[in-house]
């Protein structure tokens, strides 16, 4: 197992745990946190690939990570705001009782 594979494995695990949380928690905020974790896993991949890439002067990976963090921050802000608004609307953030997306 090379170094890169270790990092990738770690990020996969992190991703899976985040996914498991997102899939199993009833609290919408925790679901959102799970998604954030999955994003973080992706960031680890970017950095790892940059680190083990052909030359560290190609900083695309770093850039991607930075933009990804920015997007994630925006996503978290809007997502949490939506949750707060949804809570105000229906007085719950229980995803099991939220099914208004039903077609």
């Amino acid at each position, binding site marked *: 197992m090379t170094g890169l594979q270790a990092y990738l494995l770690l990020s996969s695990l992190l991703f899976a745990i985040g*996914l498991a949380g997102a*899939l*199993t928690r009833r609290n919408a905020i925790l*679901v959102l946190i799970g998604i954030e974790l999955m994003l973080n896993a992706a960031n680890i991949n970017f950095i790892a690939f940059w680190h083990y890439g052909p030359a560290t002067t190609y900083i695309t990976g770093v850039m991607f990570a930075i933009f990804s963090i920015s997007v994630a921050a925006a996503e978290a802000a809007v997502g949490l705001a939506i949750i707060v608004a949804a809570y105000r609307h229906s007085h719950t953030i229980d995803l099991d009782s*939220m099914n208004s*997306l*039903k077609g």
Partner: protein
Amino acid sequence: MTWIVRYVCLIPALPMLAAGISALLPQRSRKPAAGLAIVSMAASFALALCAFAAALSNPSPQVFNFSWLQFGDQTLALGWLLDPLTAVMLVMVTFVGLLIFIYSTGYMEHDENFTRFFCFLALFAGGMLGVIIANSLLLLFMCWEIVGLTSYLLIGFWYQNPRAAAAAKKAFITTRIGDLGFLIGMVWLYAQAHTLLFYDSGRGALESGAVSHLAVTTTIYGLTLSSAIGLLIFCGAMGKSGQVPLHVWLPDAMEGPTPVSALIHAATMVAAGVFLIARIYPLMSAHGVEVVTPTIALQVVTWVGAITALFGATVAVAQWDIKRILAYSTVSQLGYMMIGLGVGGPAVGMFHLITHAFFKALLFLGAGSVIHGCSGEQDIRRMGGLRKYMPLTFLTYGIGMLALSGFPLVVSGFWSKDAILYSAHHWSVSQLPFYMASLGALLTAFYMTRQVCYVFFGTLRLPGHGPVSHSEPDSEDTRHHGAGHPHESPAVMTAPLAILAFFAFALGFLGTPLWPWFQSFLNGDHSVAAEHEPGLVATMAASSVIALLGIFLGWLLYGRQSIATCEAPDVLERAQPQTFRVLHQAYFIDAIYDATFVRLTRWTAKLADLLDRFLFHGIVQAISFGVLGLAWVDSFVDNYVVNFGFDSSWRSISMGGRAMAALQGGRVQAYLRYIGLALVALVLYLLWGVAR
């Protein structure tokens, strides 16, 4: 070019201006309107005298031309001219017009549309004078149409009377029929001569260059171009001058006020046709070098004139309405003028035109005075004995009657008519026009005597006077406030009568064979009429006898025994009731026109309307029904063929959708789960692909 040539345009412009101003005046400003018209006419008369003097000193045509419009690189010029013909007409029209204007202030005194009347009258004078001075056939045509418009307006002046309105329309349309020929002739002349100016220092349409070209070119039926164009223009003259068969409007035009009848439908406008032919006489008479007989155009003019002269005279014998008699007499006299033009040239025709203008205006004004005195009565059977009540009118009317009858030696009508008869006698084509004209002259003397006897002699037969009449009045006109018995007209009306009467006498001496000043003036310097010609005295004697015989016959039948009652039938009616009826109805020409042309027009209009409503519209309808049918077939196919397949496939899609919708539980985490599983599948697929 003297100053007067440049300013000759003012002669028509002044009355037109007066008309324009009085058109804007309110209805109540009666005095300003009349004053304006009379003053403008007087000024025109003064200018006309100056123009006359200028023409005396220089009889060759003097012109003033200007460009009216341009099309492409071409210029269409208009202009006016001064030559003896113009000068004579100018003086006559302005003078007679002025007298009639003055007379009208009395005659129309009580009319509510007094202001309008003078507006129209001044507009008419402007148009008529424009016709006279025009040096361009186009300008002449334009003024000609304006004259026609004012004639229309004035005939229909009492527009609330449906008969007057109908007569006005009839006059306009009948003359317009002739004008269509005029228009075609004009554009043809324009195309051939490349100008419509009469005189343009050698390039004009009436000057030798253009005329000789036209005279040698022949067109259809062997007519020379000049004759063909001349005849087309003559159509216009026929319409305006009431020549058979376009005369029907003139008797009806008597629905207008009497001064209008005198001015427009006796003295001036109806003579415009004669003037027009005199104006384009070089064109009408142009023939090639080797030909010596009169041109076809002039022959047609002569024959039309002869027929008209005889026709009008016969019909006038059997009329009851004082103005209709004079109207038919005018038709007849216009025929004489045409004969004069055809056989003797412009001088002969124009001489009769001038003398006729004076004595016919006199007669009409006299008739107007009679009608005025009798409170609007126009039927001569209800008059009688008026010489006692209206002596001045009687005297002047008598002079007019003698002039029209051609009483030998003293009156103007004798000399002018004699000149026509003389020329007709020496016409190289046929003697028939001479005999027709002679018979007409006899009848003229006869019917005028009849009229005078009916009106002025015998006893008064007005309703309420003398023997009581039970016949309902023929004319329900109550426009003139009626006094109980006939009365002489005011001085404003009788004074013009007296002046006109003087000229009805005196004018003849300008054109006697002994001193043919008028003819030589009109013909310019190449006068040939001064010498004594063979047969002159014989013709004079013959025409004297004819006139005297006519007067005698008239007196014999109508004057010897005074007419007692207004129901009493006419002497001729008693003798020949059928003939009399035919004559009274003017040979039923109106009825024939009604039955043919009018009905034809109406039917064509109906047909055009039906074509529109049914044929053209029907085709459109058929097409649209066809389209509708197609649409129906199409919708059938749609509903039962296409839609069936479509519907069934749609239904299966819809059911599939319902199945899919079940997957959509609305739970976010379920979706996320699907995404995770999809991710697994995707990675497996990619790995499998790499592994291979």
